[in-house]
């Protein structure tokens, strides 16, 4: 580093100048106009100063803390060329109705330039219930696609080459079943295990704290995650069996630092449990991927992603002694914040989503979902989802944001915010260890309590007007509350009947003896602490349903009952 550059980052040399500015220009200005507010804070409540100077980054060591993209600690990105080499994957999550409905939506998205797929499942599927379960009937195909057996999965990915187009599945509690279905469909397409790409969300810990789609208690559920990690590393080494998700934690009301800490703690827990099982950290860690939220506070989100990469690299290398650089890299998908969307004046959501998507790109995400303007109400309409895809294409092609790597590095504000978030997150991680680790912290509701407190604080700020939301507490307009006809979307009301009819047809046609024997093998493996994946794979190929497989696991693992914390 040249002497001049060194002087520029050295806080002491500018201290006098900053004091002079405070006493002079700033004092002068404040004597005439006061600040708009007494204090400024990020959306997570971190204080924001008037300006940031070299003083604020005096502790930063360029080589150690910022460095170069594609190199440890990856603050600037996981690839050396980032988007100058390959753009991020445009991956819109989609799912509704039956497998046919969702397959049609995939083809629409791919025709409009989407480059990866992602599946949302309906509530019965997410909770491991068949569509004809009494509790399921009101929910079939509503918030995602209904999948009961391998037959549905075959239709879902029909005509989609699973070696070329990576598909992601937003599934967690019964992820083992869906991973087995995915593998079976790929095999039918003639795609071999080593060619299969894709991702399962499969991050169970955040279900207890935020998303609430759990089935089994945390201990066996985490072991099930490790089963899939081990199985996929052996049979489909390019497949990401876990996408550790901060998204839902943030959407449930957490701050950026809480999102960071609780997500990294979960990822660390899966990796450490795998090591405890005797697996080499470098066998499983390279395929752990992540999923973060992109909230509306632009700089805080960029800082969050940079801090996440730096922290994960250090956790893997220093705490779990990973040696393979691929184990140190935090690869992530991002989605713009559903909670930032408003049901009022929905066109404004296009603007919010654009700002959030820009933060994702400047933060170095590997793939991105941009929300559609009508998602505060419904499954997105075709018109709205096309605008969302176009938003990413405009950022990629026109804005110049994708043409340079980590342009905000060295910004006094962004670097100091990155450090600040990292410090706060390390502090939370220490508290989690003090409580007895993440599984325990989740089990006793410690994490849930933290999130509920942040969520309530934010709501009070919105209601008091302290936090402005355009169209909600400022610039409010009288609205009809009805969507324009070209934005109206409705799931076919006949979907439940059609789905149950197909399930019954599969049950009538399959070999029941093969199903019974496969299910008994699943029970055996689960009860004896063996990896359940080979048995689940057999059961899926025999057309056992997701409800049947999960019922067997319920018998062995039990069901989780959550403490009601608010």
């Amino acid at each position, binding site marked *: 580093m040249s002497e001049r550059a060194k002087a520029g980052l050295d806080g002491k040399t500018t201290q006098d100048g900053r004091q002079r500015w405070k006493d002079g220009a700033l004092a002068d200005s404040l004597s005439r106009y006061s600040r708009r507010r007494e204090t400024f804070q990020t959306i997570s409540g971190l204080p924001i100063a008037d300006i940031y100077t070299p003083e604020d980054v005096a502790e930063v060591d360029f080589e150690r803390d910022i460095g170069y993209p594609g190199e440890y600690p990856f603050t600037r990105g996981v690839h050396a060329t980032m988007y100058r080499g390959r753009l991020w994957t445009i991956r819109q999550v989609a799912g509704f109705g039956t497998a046919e409905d969702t397959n049609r939506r995939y083809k629409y998205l791919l025709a409009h330039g989407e480059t990866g797929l992602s599946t949302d499942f309906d*509530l019965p599927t997410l909770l491991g219930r068949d569509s004809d379960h009494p509790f399921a009937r009101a929910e079939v195909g*509503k918030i995602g696609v209904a999948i009961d057996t391998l037959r549905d999965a075959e239709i879902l990915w029909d005509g989609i080459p699973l070696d070329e187009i990576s598909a992601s599945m937003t599934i967690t509690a019964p992820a083992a079943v869906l991973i087995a279905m995915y593998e079976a469909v790929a095999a039918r397409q003639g795609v071999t295990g080593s060619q299969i790409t894709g991702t399962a969300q499969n991050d169970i810990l955040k279900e207890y704290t935020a998303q*609430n789609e759990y089935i089994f208690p945390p201990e066996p559920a985490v072991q099930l995650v490790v089963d899939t990690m081990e199985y996929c590393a052996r049979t489909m080494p390019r497949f990401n069996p876990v996408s550790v998700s901060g998204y839902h934690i943030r959407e449930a009301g957490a701050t950026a630092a809480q999102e960071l800490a609780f997500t990294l703690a979960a990822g660390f827990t899966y990796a450490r449990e795998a090591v405890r099982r005797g697996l080499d950290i470098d066998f499983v860690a390279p395929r752990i991927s992540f999923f973060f939220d992109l909230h509306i506070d632009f700089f805080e989100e960029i800082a969050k992603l940079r801090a996440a990469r730096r922290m994960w690299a250090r956790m893997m290398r220093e705490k779990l002694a990973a040696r393979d650089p691929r184990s140190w890299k935090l690869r992530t998908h991002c989605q713009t914040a559903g909670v930032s969307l408003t049901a*009022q004046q929905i066109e404004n959501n296009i603007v919010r989503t654009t700002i959030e998507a820009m933060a994702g790109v400047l933060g170095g995400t590997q793939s991105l979902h941009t929300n559609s303007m009508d998602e505060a109400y419904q499954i997105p309409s075709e018109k709205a989802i096309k605008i969302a895809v176009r938003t990413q294409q405009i950022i990629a092609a026109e804005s110049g944001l994708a043409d340079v790597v980590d342009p905000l590095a060295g910004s006094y504000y962004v670097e100091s915010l990155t450090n600040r978030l990292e410090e706060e997150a390390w502090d939370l991680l220490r508290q989690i260890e003090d409580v007895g680790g993440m599984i325990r912290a989740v089990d006793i509701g410690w994490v849930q309590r933290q999130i509920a407190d942040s*969520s309530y604080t934010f*709501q009070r700020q919105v209601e008091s007007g302290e936090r402005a939301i355009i169209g909600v507490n400022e610039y409010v307009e009288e609205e009809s*509350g*009805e969507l324009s006809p070209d934005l109206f979307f409705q799931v076919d009301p006949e979907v439940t009947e059609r789905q149950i009819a197909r399930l019954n047809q599969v049950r009538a046609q399959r070999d029941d003896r093969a199903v019974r024997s496969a299910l008994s093998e699943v029970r055996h493996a689960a009860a004896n602490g063996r990896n359940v994946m080979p048995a689940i794979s057999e059961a899926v190929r025999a057309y056992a349903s997701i409800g049947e497989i999960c019922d067997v696991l319920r018998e062995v693992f039990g069901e989780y009952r959550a*403490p009601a914390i*608010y």
Partner: protein
Amino acid sequence: MNKILRAVVAKPGMDGHDRGAKIVARALRDAGMEVIYTGIFQTSEAIVETVLQEDADILGISILSGAHLHYAEEIGRLLRESGLEEVLFLLGGTVPKEHVEQLKAYGVAEVFGPGTHTDEIVQYIRNWAAAREKDG
């Protein structure tokens, strides 16, 4: 208004989106009510049973999965069948405007959509309680 109001806040069905329900539960508690939050994954029968057991004045259900018509109909019917038609039945969530009339026909007194202030809900309940007291 001397009697402390008792409210059950419930999440019927499989929908896990509980941020709103928890905020409302806390706001009602902060407003001096006794709140019983059922947690998620409740059947309609279990919710009405809780209202009965807890001798609640108010039942608020929160649904964001699109299954509001199904559950409002079921819970409204069960309330009447259990002789609980006096209970103030409220619903919160993302509900299309064209469904509001139908929900009211099922027995829902008021629907609170996105952007509702918790103060609004508290005030609505207080007005209802005051009117109930006056009617004796």
